[in-house]
């Protein structure tokens, strides 16, 4: 009698635990239950993430996150982050998703998952008008500003051996370093050049070397098939209906090519 009870009890316990264990890796379920999605966004990288003149979060990543939360039917909680802390935010469960100019790279794919890309993002080496450049070799012995832990940082460290890399923590600091004359060359996203040039009309940037084109995707923790499936589907739908293209155009003034992005996403 006792043993039957114990056995039943154990079976019941196991049954009770099963869904809990399964639900634990189901961030999508957790998001729906909580009624809010926590999305990490860097608000110091205009025009992707910034604070507008009414001190509200704005930018293409912010609008993308808002659209995502709205379609998911939950409230959006923006978790502000910085370039180097985007991935740790996911790993330490401080955010459910990252929508923050996160480009897909093999190194990053080892630790997190990516959705289908929602935008593209060419990165360039740009310099002052009076500083001509045509190849990485021309960078030898020159100070080149980058934001730490970005793909530009990794690429230049590898490709431009002779260059003296000056690393800043975010785009705003790097832009200030250029505007104030600390550096004449920087490696960054092409989309940023107009904003940086606007800071000091006496010092405008010209794009010199196209480093590579990145695909920006929503970052999520590994082993989240339900969430990944939903986000992939959402990105595809909104690329096709032009909503994501409209957000990009509004902030960057350039069109994105949905067909190319869908192809890159498989």
């Amino acid at each position, binding site marked *: 009698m006792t043993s039957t009870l114990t056995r039943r009890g154990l079976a019941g316990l196991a049954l009770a635990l099963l869904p809990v264990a399964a639900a634990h890796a189901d961030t999508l379920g957790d998001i729906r239950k909580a009624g809010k999605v926590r999305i990490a966004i860097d608000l110091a990288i205009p025009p992707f993430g910034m604070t507008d003149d009414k001190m509200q979060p704005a930018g293409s990543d912010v609008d993308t996150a808002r659209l995502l939360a709205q379609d998911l039917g939950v409230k959006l909680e923006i978790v502000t982050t910085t370039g180097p802390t985007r*991935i740790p935010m996911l790993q330490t469960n401080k955010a459910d998703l990252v929508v923050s100019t996160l480009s897909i790279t093999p190194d990053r794919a080892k630790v997190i998952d990516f959705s289908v890309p929602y935008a593209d993002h060419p990165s360039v080496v740009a310099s002052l008008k009076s500083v001509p450049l045509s190849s990485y070799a021309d960078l030898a012995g020159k100070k080149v500003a980058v934001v730490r832990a970005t793909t530009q940082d*990794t690429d230049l460290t590898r490709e431009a051996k002779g260059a003296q890399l000056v690393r*800043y923590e975010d785009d705003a600091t790097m832009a200030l370093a250029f*505007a*104030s004359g600390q550096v004449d060359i920087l490696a960054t996203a092409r989309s940023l050049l107009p904003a940086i040039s606007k800071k000091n009309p006496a010092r405008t940037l010209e794009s010199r070397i196209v480093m590579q084109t990145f695909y920006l995707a929503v970052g999520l923790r590994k082993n989240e098939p339900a969430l990944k499936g939903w986000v992939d589907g959402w990105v595809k739908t909104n690329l096709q209906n032009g909503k994501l293209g409209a957000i990009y155009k509004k902030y960057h003034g350039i069109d994105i090519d949905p067909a190319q992005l869908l192809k890159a996403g498989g």
Partner: protein
Amino acid sequence: MNYQFDFSFLAERWPDFVAGAWLTIQLTVVSIALGFLLGTVCAMGRAYGGPVLRRVVGFYVELIRNTPLLVQIFVVYFGLSSLGLKLSAETSAVIALAVNMGAYTTEIMRAGIVSIQRTQLEAADCLGLTRLQAIVHVVLLPAMERVYPALSSQFVLLMLASSITSQISAEELTATANNVQSDTYRSFEVYIVVAVVYLALSALYRAAFWAIGLGLFARKRRLGTSL
């Protein structure tokens, strides 16, 4: 809690940490020395100077002690550069840290200097000490001995505060940690390593200041008691 610690990056990246720690040491030793000199001169000015000099020093001390160090560093690095004076990140860091150190040293040293009684100076006069001898042996050294524990704490605090110079691209210990963290994604482990290195540096600095103190203060060395 099922976090897998992985310190394997140390095998490859330890020279980076050594280089970062070395730059931290260089930056802070120079700023401590310059800041101490600046602060001692200002403290003399504040204790013995005329009303104008006292006001000027007081303004400097209040300005620096009531604004964030990060803002001071940005003003030196970006501000001076906008005015056409281009300084490297390391030079800017040393200037900002020394000016900051100077303000705190001023107040600490002033406390020591005002604790020296006037009669001590009169005694020095009677013994025929020159003005300079009296300042060095009767005022400054005993004043410093009295406030030495507070001074060495402030020096160690400055060493720890130097971590924020990574913001203006000085490649010191914290900047190294940020670099390694961004390459390896082992953020937790990297910052544990850096915390241990800072702890070791603090211990090293305290030991060094203790040894310097023994050298400077004969009373402490011979009798084991301070003033």
